[in-house]
């Protein structure tokens, strides 16, 4: 903890514009629990671990070291077909089980995730790049909670759907998940689907399949009936095969808006039920009457949590003009204390960028911002590791609404800072986007907070906080950020027949 005197001194410096380099000396605090990672993985189909038909595999690496962790099975269309058949076969017996029995499988899974939490957290950080602090304190606990909460819904579905005596499942669900919260996204997809009596074929992201395969082991441990969940790893082609398969009754996709639209077209052709959770360019709005220091933490939480690889990241900052200088100075000072580095070090705040491709995308956007006339600020002076994919926390000032960096989703630790004068201006500019996933509002005045929340076109509005998630809280976007909700009572609807 920083002593009060030192903090005041630094704050005074920051406000005066003296950016004295602050090197925070931390002793290394590496997570040392060893995790066994197999040299290669298989597919999980019909309750068994099986070889991919093609016998092909692709490497998954640790983005912090560039070392290969394992060879991941590359599922093709015939593997998808086998998985869909297994899911179809398992559907009737799964549906015939009393709901209270179905619940007990999900409770078992929740418990095993809790009990293997450490192993899962370390694996998640190694495969995806996120700091151990986040996988340990956010991803894994939320994944366990998701299963725990949904286990309890199995025998209570009629209360979630007023007027329906006994809600029925949709059928075989194809689910495609992204690389930013691999295990958590698997939980967000599997838990409600299973709670409602559906069976699933899950396609994890190609750069982050390891925790999904560890989850498959857990499902086997919990004696989940064969075929209820099937996991087919692979890349884009594997996902496409799943979307195009005529035997799938419902598709759920979390990923980019671009791919989401392609999937929507494919599903439209067959009338397949669909939910999408896509990109965002969420506005984080700070009013002059906000608790500024808390708002600074909120900004950090909004854009640099998980390296900014968050669909609902508060990537557009709108600051009321009168406090713009104070906010930018304090932000700059705060950013110097953020530690970028080894995801397995418990002191690390910002881990590795998930892949070389994603880093290239982020760097192109930073260059674009600079070319457009924005001022790019990367206050951190910390040395970065020689290997791995790193991006220092970045913000840009002098951003105009028409700039690329104000309009397009960067999906990295890059914040576009803009100012406003009136609430109407903030609201109108926040809404001026094809996206509508989330928003943040910082003000101490309750009526203003609710007034603005009411007028923002966003599926999740965080007031005086940011990036809060809970299994009971429905999550999803307006407009081109997708449709459908995940979590809570409202999230069940997508997995029940109409």
């Amino acid at each position: 903890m920083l002593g009060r005197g030192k903090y005041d001194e630094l704050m005074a410096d920051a406000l005066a514009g003296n950016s004295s380099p602050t090197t925070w000396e931390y002793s290394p605090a590496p997570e040392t629990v060893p995790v066994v990672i197999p040299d290669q993985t298989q597919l999980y189909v019909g309750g068994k671990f099986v070889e991919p038909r093609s016998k092909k595999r692709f490497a998954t690496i640790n983005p912090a070291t560039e070392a290969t962790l394992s060879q991941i099975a590359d599922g093709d269309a015939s593997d998808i077909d086998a998985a869909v058949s297994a899911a179809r076969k398992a559907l009737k017996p799964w549906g015939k089980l009393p709901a209270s029995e179905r619940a007990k499988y999900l409770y078992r899974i929740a418990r095993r995730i809790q009990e293997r939490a450490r192993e899962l957290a370390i694996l998640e950080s190694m495969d995806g790049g996120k700091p151990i602090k986040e996988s340990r304190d956010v991803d894994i606990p939320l994944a366990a909670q998701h299963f725990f909460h949904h286990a309890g819904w199995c025998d209570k579905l009629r209360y979630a759907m007023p007027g329906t005596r006994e809600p029925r499942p949709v059928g075989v669900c194809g689910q495609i998940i992204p690389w930013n919260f691999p295990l958590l996204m698997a939980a967000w997809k599997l838990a409600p689907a299973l709670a409602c009596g559906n069976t699933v074929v899950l396609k994890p992201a190609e750069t982050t399949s390891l925790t999904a395969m560890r989850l498959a082991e857990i499902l086997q441990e919990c004696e989940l009936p064969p075929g209820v969940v099937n996991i087919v790893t692979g890349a884009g082609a594997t996902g496409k095969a799943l979307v195009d398969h005529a035997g799938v009754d419902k598709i759920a996709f979390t990923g980019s808006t671009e791919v989401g639209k392609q999937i929507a077209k494919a599903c439209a052709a067959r009338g397949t039920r669909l939910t999408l959770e896509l990109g965002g360019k969420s506005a984080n709005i700070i009013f002059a009457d906000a608790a500024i220091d808390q708002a600074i933490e909120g900004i950090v939480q909004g854009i640099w949590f998980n390296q900014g690889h968050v669909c609902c990241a508060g990537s557009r900052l709108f600051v009321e003009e009168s406090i713009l200088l104070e906010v930018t100075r304090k932000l700059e000072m705060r950013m110097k204390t953020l530690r970028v580095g080894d995801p397995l070090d418990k002191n690390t705040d910002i881990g590795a960028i998930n892949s070389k491709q994603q880093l290239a995308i982020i760097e192109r956007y930073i260059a674009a911002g600079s070319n457009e006339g924005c001022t790019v600020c990367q206050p951190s002076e910390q040395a970065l590791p020689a290997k791995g994919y790193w991006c220092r926390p970045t913000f840009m000032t002098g951003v105009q609404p028409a700039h690329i960096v104000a309009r397009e989703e960067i999906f990295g630790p890059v914040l576009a800072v803009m100012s406003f004068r009136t609430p109407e201006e903030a609201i109108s500019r926040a809404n001026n986007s094809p996206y509508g996933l989330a928003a943040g509002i910082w003000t101490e005045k309750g009526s203003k907070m609710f007034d603005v929340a009411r007028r923002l076109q966003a599926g999740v509005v965080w007031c005086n906080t940011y990036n809060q998630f809970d299994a009971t809280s429905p999550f999803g976007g307006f407009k081109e950020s997708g449709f459908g909700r995940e979590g809570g009572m409202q999230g069940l609807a997508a997995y029940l027949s109409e």
Partner: protein
Amino acid sequence: MNEQDRLAVLKTWKLFIKGGFPRSESGRTLPLNDSKGALVAHLSHASRKDLREAIESARAAFPGWSGNTAYLRSQIIYRLAEMLEGRRLDLTDAIRCTSGVSRKKAEVEVIAAIDRTVSWAGWCDKFPMVLGSRNPVAGPYHNFSMPEASGVCVVVQGVAAQHSLLGFLSLVLPPLCTGNTVVAIANTEHPLGALLISETAPTADIPAGAFNVITGDAAELAGWVASHRDVDSIHAIANEKIASQLRAGAAENLKRVQILPVDEDFTDTDRWTNPRRLAPFVEIKTVWHPSAV
């Protein structure tokens, strides 16, 4: 030495108050006979002071228990189910001892009781969604209604000839899961299931005082419960005499009272996993806030 020659180590079942197991401060006990009339154990015969002690400990535990996240409460109740699963044989014997029912019948009841516990664990973090609402008032206000635990609930199991274990849990779980703290008066003739649950509760991480179990003379205790001013609700199954005693006393400070008829069928799963069972033990709080400047 074989079973017949060996002298059994008998025990007196103690009260369960504030996470511990005291005997009655009155020193009194009651005999417990099995279904054939043979003496099998003694129960503590709770006094008015014991009851007051239990209610005080429930009151003290209320801020903590109701202040826990719903998720934590659901995990603790699920842990209770996990621990009871490990005691299936004991619970089966407990039921058979005083009721004389077949092993098969007793096993069916034990399974139902454990599954009932799992089901109620799942209500902890869901009932506010079903019983609460955001109300579209005709003005610029956010208005939401939230069900909150009312406080201390006294459970009175006056009748337990059928399904003593399942009945006990069905009375206790709705108030407990919503965040109320409970003082449960077990049935005097068929208390063993309840007493085993009291011994299991500390191993399920139920915080001390959140759940208390006492045994004694039902009519005696009912009178004291009815007039106790620091009880918020009563959940009971009782004959007409005790029922009217409870209702009359409750009227003095408007305790919320839910009394079930003596022929209540606790095996009706639909009815006994319905969230309406917990409605008497929550208060609806409606909060307004301007939604326009």
